[in-house]
């Protein structure tokens, strides 16, 4: 290590850098019987919320919740000084929920946004939560936050009514001050009301949420609360935390999936100054005082590996997925598909393919673990601190309550930070080393141990009558799961069959024989595959019927929300009726879908270079109905992000592998969307204030493959049945078309 002069000391306390720098008393307090919580918090008012497990995504496992009040899902605390703290088991990974959850609490409590402090993702101080995924934070956790805030407001106004000697109905609340309506001088603040109290209250049915018409904080777009820290570099991610005496680990990894170590020689690595090698039941790691030394030493480990590579590679995997599909279930069935196959005027039998796709968050997985006095504290980049906690406990032989997981800012998740391999590794190594240990994956490890979006196959047989009305929809998906397969078109004879679980159904561990490596949820798991297939199929039928793609869709569905987003996107895009393909080299496409409770429709405009196959997406217009919009600008950021990310899986992203080796191990071989790819993006939020907020992080990505494919078809007449739509593949299809 070097000596730094003229600078502050290198070591800074991890706890001070974490998002949840709460007093130690708090952690203890929240394990007490509920009536004692509030006293340990220093008095004031604590509001608890009980939600049915189905809404929180809880598995109901008592073990997972051990050490926590089993019936409580959100806390809001109003301290004696008026400080409001919202405790959330959700985490902030860029999706902006730190801001939107705070808005919701402030709205229903009746305080300014700046008065609410939020603590997220700390297992010691936050209520149990299944994990941050599935566009569920605003949909399911949001109502709990609002209910807690509304309850607190009720308690406070009741106290104020006593204090001021008037009925509650005579009171007005503004920015944490309660006053007699029309008499602003007869007032009392929330802090004054909370002083001397020790109230712990579970939400009952009396609290009424504010209506969309009354919103003062929700429905607006304050600057993001994480903005200042993120633009100054002050925001701490897991790999940024430091503890005195910590060591940096590099783990000895196999060269390929299916490879097993049959002897490791670590002598040379151990000879490097400052380096220790530890072996924890086969987890072999080099530990060093700085990351570069660890990197240098791990390269000196000599290993013999026995390989048992999978029998398929990134080209042959599709046949394997169909042949080896472990089970088939029918998720939707109506009419008689066999008869319709015979009787339809025209039928269409098409197969679509989707490759393995990486999450590729720019922040690699990282964790810092400290194991001391029979307790473990792990700071981790994770979407699921509460499911990580028992995993770590099992790995260490600890009780769950002796493990604390703290989630700093997460540098992108997209589903890839739901599993917690790196955190378990850090904990095991810290236990063995007796020193704090950081595990921070390299990009190559990231591409090796990522739980990829699974490769998948969709086979559709569809039919229509002579008037272009759908008569048949026989849909079979392999390995993507059922998300976004619901048939919202009016088809009398339909069947949806789902074979093999998708990444969204936790296929990670048990999928070893089906998939060559780990798979898991990837932003709207399976929905990208399913909409890619379904919306191209519809488009192909429209073309065959000689009908404009918008008109074809409008003619074949009565779903009012779908009709609204279709009309909204058409209007915003300036859609003029015409029949595809027009084969001019420029094209436009349309696609729509339903995901996480939200309806979306997209129009994309592309230019296709018919000499090279290069596709430039020029413009994407998206209309989304997501119910009440908590933060319009935040919602638009999510839509824009989803559209931009969707360019990647549509045009370039594909994990290539051979013999168990992942050939796409960095961004030179695995291309992510870049600035030059990004189209003009226009978003329309279709108002629907009668519906509670729906999903926002995922829906707008699900149509991207199809809408681009449909635009390429319009431009060239070529049908792109396999993702990604690389220049080579586009060129090959143009030549066939």
């Amino acid at each position, binding site marked *: 290590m070097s000596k730094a002069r003229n600078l*502050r000391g290198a070591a800074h306390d991890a706890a001070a850098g974490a998002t949840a720098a709460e007093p130690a008393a708090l952690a203890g307090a929240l394990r007490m019987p509920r009536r004692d919580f509030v006293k340990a918090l220093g008095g004031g008012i604590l509001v608890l919320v009980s939600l049915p497990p189905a809404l929180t995504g809880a598995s109901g496992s008592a073990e997972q919740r051990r050490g926590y009040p089993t019936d409580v899902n959100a806390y809001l605390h109003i301290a004696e000084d008026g400080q409001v703290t919202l405790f959330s088991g959700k985490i902030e990974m860029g999706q902006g929920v730190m801001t939107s959850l705070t808005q919701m609490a402030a709205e229903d409590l009746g305080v300014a946004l700046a008065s609410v402090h939020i603590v997220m993702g700390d297992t010691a101080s936050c209520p149990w939560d299944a994990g941050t995924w599935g566009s569920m934070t605003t949909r399911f956790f949001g109502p709990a936050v609002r209910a807690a805030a509304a309850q607190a407001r009720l308690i406070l106004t009741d106290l104020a009514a006593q204090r001021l000697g008037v009925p509650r109905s005579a009171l007005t609340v503004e920015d944490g001050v309660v006053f007699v309506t029309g008499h602003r001088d007869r007032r009392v603040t929330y802090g004054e009301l909370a002083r001397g109290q020790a109230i712990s209250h579970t939400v009952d049915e009396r609290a009424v949420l504010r209506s969309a018409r009354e919103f003062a904080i929700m429905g607006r777009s304050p600057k993001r609360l994480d903005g200042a820290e*993120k633009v100054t570099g002050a925001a701490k991610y897991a790999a940024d935390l430091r503890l005195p005496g910590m060591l940096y680990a590099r783990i000895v990894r196999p060269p390929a999936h299916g490879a097993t170590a049959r002897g490791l020689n670590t002598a040379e690595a151990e000879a490097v100054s400052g380096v220790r090698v530890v072996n924890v039941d086969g987890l072999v790691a080099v530990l060093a005082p700085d990351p570069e030394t660890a990197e240098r030493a791990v390269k000196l480990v000599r290993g013999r590996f026995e390989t048992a590579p999978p029998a398929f590679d990134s080209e042959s995997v599709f046949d394997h997925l169909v042949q080896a599909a472990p089970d088939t279930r029918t998720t939707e069935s109506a009419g008689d598909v066999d008869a319709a196959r015979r009787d339809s005027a025209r039928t269409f039998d098409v197969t679509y393919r989707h490759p393995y796709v990486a999450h590729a968050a*720019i922040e690699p997985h990282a964790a810092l673990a400290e194991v001391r006095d029979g307790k473990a504290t792990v700071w981790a980049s994770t979407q699921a601190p509460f499911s990580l906690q028992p995993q770590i406990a099992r790995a260490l032989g600890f009780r769950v309550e002796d493990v604390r997981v703290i989630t700093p800012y997460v540098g992108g998740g997209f589903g890839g930070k739901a599993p917690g391999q790196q955190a378990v590794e850090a904990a095991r190594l810290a236990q063995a080393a007796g020193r704090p240990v950081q595990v921070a994956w390299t990009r190559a490890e990231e591409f090796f141990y990522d739980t990829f979006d699974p490769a998948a196959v969709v086979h559709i047989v569809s039919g229509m009558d002579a008037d272009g009305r759908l008569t048949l929809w026989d849909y079979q998906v392999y390995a993507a799961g059922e998300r976004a397969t619901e048939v919202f078109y009016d088809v009398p004879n339909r069947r949806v069959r789902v074979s093999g679980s998708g990444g969204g159904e936790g296929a990670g561990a048990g999928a070893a024989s089906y998939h060559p490596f780990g798979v898991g949820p990837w932003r709207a798991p399976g929905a990208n595959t399913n909409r890619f297939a379904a919306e191209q199929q519809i488009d192909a039928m429209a073309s065959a019927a000689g009908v404009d793609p918008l008109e074809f869709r409008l003619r074949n569905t009565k779903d009012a929300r779908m009709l609204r987003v279709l009309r909204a996107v058409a209007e915003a895009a300036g859609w003029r009726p015409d029949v595809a393909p027009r084969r001019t080299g420029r094209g436009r496409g349309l696609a729509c879908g339903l995901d996480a409770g939200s309806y979306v429709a997209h129009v994309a405009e592309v230019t296709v270079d018919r000499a090279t196959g290069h596709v430039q997406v020029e413009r994407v217009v998206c209309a989304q109905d997501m119910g009440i919009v908590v933060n319009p600008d935040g919602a638009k950021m999510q839509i*824009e992000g989803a559209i931009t990310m969707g360019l990647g899986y549509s045009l370039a992203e594909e994990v290539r592998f051979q013999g168990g080796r992942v050939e796409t191990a960095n961004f030179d071989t695995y291309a992510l*969307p870049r600035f030059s790819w990004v189209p003009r993006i226009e978003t329309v939020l279709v108002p629907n204030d009668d519906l509670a907020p729906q999903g926002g992080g995922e829906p707008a990505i699900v149509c991207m493959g199809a809408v681009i494919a449909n635009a390429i078809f319009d431009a060239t007449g070529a049908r792109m049945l396999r993702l990604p739509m690389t220049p080579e593949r586009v060129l090959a299809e143009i030549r066939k078309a």
Partner: protein
Amino acid sequence: MTDTIRFRLNGAPVSLETDGTRTLLWVLRTDLALTGTKYGCGMGLCGSCTVLVDGRAVRSCQTDLASVQGKEVTTIEGLAPAGRLDPLQQAFHDEGGFQCGYCTPGMILGAHALLAANPHPTREQIVQGLEGHLCRCGAHQRIIAAIETASGQRGGHHE
């Protein structure tokens, strides 16, 4: 092997007794405790480790410590001395030019070097200038808007 490496870091002199072949990224993040500079790929492919050396954007994961001998190094922490945000930082904040924030320090420093060389870039020049910076969250459209705002080419609401 130990060398004496002296340079200016965020306006203050630094002297390190260490191996000059070490990588600037890791020396910043460990020895100097400046963790705003991020590791993303380790091969100069993503831009998240970008810092300024004598005002030019370099990938600190591809930069030997010895090569900054006698030079001026600026990291994201040096862009807002005394807490006053640089116009680019303010514009990224105002325009929402970030989501998870992990690529943001490198992105802002890349944009800083771009504006230093070309104070009023066209949209095309911004796109070209940042082509080597990856953002997985897809904040690109707003990052471009932030740079246009900071360079006075949009009616931004920052001062």
